[in-house]
């Protein structure tokens, strides 16, 4: 782990990660229950977290010859902004974009906002992946737009099937900067058993 990643992990733990109090529980988007909560936005829009995320995303993708970085609104928006700023600060350039979950019914009626163009090589990012559904929507929208999805990047992977989802869709370059088991000490049922097979 690089010093930048370590510092970002520290900020995530301090600002975004919370275990449930006794008797408390969270219901995930899928309906599954969880005894911890990760609010990535609390880090992504923080003074220290935002540039750290940008630098980590830059370091993670700088050799991929990307044209653009994007993701699904709202979670991916601050990450995308941080990444394009980091690229600029490092003397390079990528376009940022985000995909609307629902097409707006006024103005341009665009599904994709930003400087995306067909044929671009893109990375899809999001802050926290559970099953990967949000990032998959963004990846499918970018593909439908005529772009090549080079990789999908999770800031934190909850290890609930996102990697398998993308592999099943033919997106084999899935990268998680952190995961809840190795970096946040969360017990993920079945993970040890799977690793032992």
């Amino acid at each position: 782990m690089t010093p930048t990643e370590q510092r970002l992990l520290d900020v995530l733990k301090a600002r975004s990660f919370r275990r449930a109090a006794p008797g408390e529980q969270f219901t995930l988007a899928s309906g599954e229950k969880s005894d911890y909560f990760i609010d990535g936005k609390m880090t992504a829009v923080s003074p220290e977290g935002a540039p750290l995320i940008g630098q980590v995303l830059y370091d993670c993708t700088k050799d991929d010859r990307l044209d653009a970085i994007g993701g699904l609104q709202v979670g991916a928006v601050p990450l995308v902004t941080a990444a394009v700023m980091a690229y600029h600060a490092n003397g390079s350039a990528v376009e940022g974009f985000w995909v609307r979950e629902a097409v707006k019914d006024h103005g341009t009626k665009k599904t994709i906002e930003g400087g995306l163009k067909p044929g671009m090589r893109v990375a899809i990012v999001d802050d926290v992946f559970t099953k990967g559904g949000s990032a998959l929507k963004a990846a499918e929208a970018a593909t439908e737009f005529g772009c090549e999805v080079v990789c999908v990047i999770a800031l934190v992977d909850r290890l609930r099937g996102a990697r398998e989802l993308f592999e099943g869709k033919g997106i084999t370059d899935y990268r998680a900067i952190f995961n809840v088991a190795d970096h946040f000490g969360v017990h993920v049922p079945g993970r040890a058993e799977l690793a032992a097979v």
Partner: protein
Amino acid sequence: MSRAALNSLLSDPGFAPKDITPATIEARAWFMATADADASAVLGVFNDLLARGFDDEQGVPTDAWERFTGEVLPKLLGITASPPTVTPADLAIAYHSSI
């Protein structure tokens, strides 16, 4: 049509937080097609659920979700039924008490 589609979505035994956004889209389509109190009340509930972060992929406190599914969802099913068995006032009271 959107009323029936919304009722179908809400009737799914697996209705989960991920379905709040699609349900809001259906509620809005219903309201745009039919300017009545039922559609307005339902759209108001879903817009407020979004404002409260019920669509957050990272989760909703389970006690809040269970209050919604226990107290509000049955009313939503009733008001989207054909013919409706729940009034907008019943829905408003149930939603208010769930918050």
